[in-house]
């Protein structure tokens, strides 16, 4: 696993922050936006220049922040899996992004026609560019693709990775996502009026909206043949993808899509709802998501297991959220602990659901992780103890 987000630049940083209940939400400082004082964000306090240096890139490169964050996370993941040469097995890369090259496009848009400095970012605009750059940086030559289903993207990347291994297409696949903060998404979510000016409070009755975040997060999936005697961090034992088919941006009241995605994942994992020890919820802290997700959870689980949303730590990292939370779920399995849902005070009256608000020890064999996005996209992953 490899990850860089507002709560740290490595997996170990994340473990430390999560165990210490330390949020990474702050005021934006890497770039200027008119909304700087009216929103809180999960920002990585490293400039593009610092990230470029960390990757030893030449000065005239045209890596977007999306590609930079992705490379940093993949680099750590490869090191952790002791992979020095990706070519010894058929290795693929599936990345997820919503921003693509927008962080540079929005900066250079007015002078694309007139400035050479701007021009090099025309070809980096499309979403696949960041993934192609990550592949080139690590000499990945086999299957490489990008998924963009809004905030469920990285979960879908993990799903496809499993499918490619199950079918024998690949021996090993690097799966995850990368999304930086940018004005485009800040203004988009602002215009939808779902950004909070405080640290978000998922599942709280007075929740005010979400904090956008940024992250690069990748996991390495390997077939049994490739793994040999390396330690297994966890199994992807189930996955499910369903569409709410209700509204382009809003979730249905009864959470049909979420319910179906969780149900599919349990079926594939061949386990019952009562076997889930912890739910890492999507829990964005918007009025709509948390109500809908609560309804879906209550429909599926007669006895709702321990659950929390970790969005108040990292912010909502959009396309990357599914990979960020898959890593957090694996850390929960390793620590045999449920990470807290920060800032919760009162339950939503309609659901009455109360998340874990303090770090608690628990026997954790199976974690269910949800990621839902625009377009009714609902995806669920089940990660299990090795």
């Amino acid at each position, binding site marked *: 696993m490899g990850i860089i987000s507002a709560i740290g630049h490595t997996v170990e940083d994340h473990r430390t922050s999560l165990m210490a209940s330390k949020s990474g939400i702050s005021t934006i400082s890497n770039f200027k936006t008119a909304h700087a004082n009216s929103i809180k964000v999960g920002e990585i306090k490293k400039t593009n220049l610092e990230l470029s240096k960390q990757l030893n890139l030449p000065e005239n490169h045209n890596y977007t922040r999306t590609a930079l964050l992705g490379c940093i996370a993949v680099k750590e993941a490869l090191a952790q899996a002791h992979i020095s040469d990706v070519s010894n097995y058929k290795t693929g890369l599936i990345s997820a992004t919503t921003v693509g090259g*927008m962080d540079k496009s929005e900066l250079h848009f007015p002078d694309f026609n007139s400035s050479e400095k701007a021009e090099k970012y025309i070809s980096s605009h499309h979403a696949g560019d960041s993934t192609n750059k990550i592949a080139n940086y690590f000499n990945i030559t086999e299957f490489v693709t990008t998924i963009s289903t809004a905030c469920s993207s990285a979960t879908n990347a993990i799903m496809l990775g499993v499918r490619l291994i199950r079918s024998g297409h690949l021996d090993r696949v690097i799966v995850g996502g990368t999304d930086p903060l940018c004005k485009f998404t800040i203004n988009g979510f602002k215009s939808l009026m779902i950004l909070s000016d405080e640290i978000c409070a998922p599942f709280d009755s007075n929740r005010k909206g979400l904090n956008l975040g940024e992250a690069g997060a990748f996991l390495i999936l390997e077939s049994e043949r490739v793994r040999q005697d390396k330690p297994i961090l966890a199994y992807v034992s189930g996955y499910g993808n369903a569409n709410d088919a209700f509204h382009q941006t809003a979730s249905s009241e009864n959470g049909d899509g979420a319910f179906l995605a969780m149900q599919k994942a349990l079926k594939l994992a061949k386990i019952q709802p009562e076997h889930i020890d912890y739910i890492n919820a999507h829990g964005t802290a918007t009025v709509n998501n948390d109500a809908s997700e609560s309804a879906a959870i209550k429909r599926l689980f007669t006895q709702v297991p321990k659950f929390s949303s970790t969005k108040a730590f990292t912010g909502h990292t959009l396309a990357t959220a599914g990979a960020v939370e898959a890593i957090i779920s694996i850390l929960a399995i390793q620590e045999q602990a449920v990470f807290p849902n920060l800032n919760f005070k009162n339950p939503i009256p309609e659901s009455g659901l109360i998340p874990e608000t303090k770090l608690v020890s628990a026997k954790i064999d199976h974690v269910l992780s949800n990621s839902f996005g625009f*377009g009714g996209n609902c995806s669920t992953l089940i990660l299990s103890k090795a």
Partner: protein
Amino acid sequence: MKTCYINSAVSISTQDTFDVEKLVFKPLDYSSSTVRVKYPEFKKFISPIALRRMSSAVKMGVTASQLAMSKAEIEVPDAILTGTGMGCIDATETFLEAIIANNEDFLTPTAFIQSTHNTVGAQIALGLKCKSYNNTYVNGAVSFESALLDAKLCIELDEDNSILVGGIDEIGTIFCDLQYKNELKDGSGIRLPKSEGAHFFGLSNIKKENSICLKSVEVLHHLKMDSIETHAISILKKCGLDEVDAIITGHKNDEFDVYYESFLENTFQNTTQIRYKDVVGDYFTVSGFAVFLAQYMLINQTIPEGLTVKQNKVKPFKTILLYNQEQGQNHSFILLTTC
């Protein structure tokens, strides 16, 4: 393992390809940087109220998908998988311009909502009230192939029975034009205009009257020029074939056409070779058109008029291999056969 059949193929392109019996291509206008598609009569498929709210990518996608489903006799698919290179670029440009023009103030969310890459797949699902698997691939020139490969895996692994697969790209007004000018300046000599289109296919594990077989889809990030031919031969071997009756390539008059030349100069030099981008223009998911063309050839046993063809032997088309790449990366092979 179940066989993956393609039971329908629908094309919206710069040519008369939508729901026509016979394909005849006319030369493309090379004088401008961008060429728009020939829009079908959208109102036959979409209500006037819905049409007003839709971007051109959504209109094309919804229309092409409906015809693809009806031709493949799919009522509600088990999965909707789409690919798009530039995404909903029109709405993206609109929202970006508004942010800059209004200095991040007075913004309405409509364009932002529509700019999301998975809008087309989501709108198709919404229209059908289809709650099944839905995914969108956005990796440049292999966006459509990624969706096609995922669909094939789902059918073979028995996860789904009938799948709608599509590739969509709209042209917008700014980025594609910038790309064209940028590539010209690069000296890479790309002379094909940028264009747009939508291609949808009904896939199933059940064979129908007009089925063809999807034997292989391979996506490779990098491939050395001298190993393309070997790779193609290995794909044929894996499918139990010694030769192929036609090859459709993604030539586009740029310096990277050498990849195609190198591929075709030995074993396949006497195989029928067909190009298509010179009649429909260039965009990331234009390879969907190649699958549409191959399906037409396998069903009708003829090459449509107006294409650049090198034909050495006239024989029935039983197997067609598609090869495409973009600037020396994002290589893809698709093998289709009669069945």
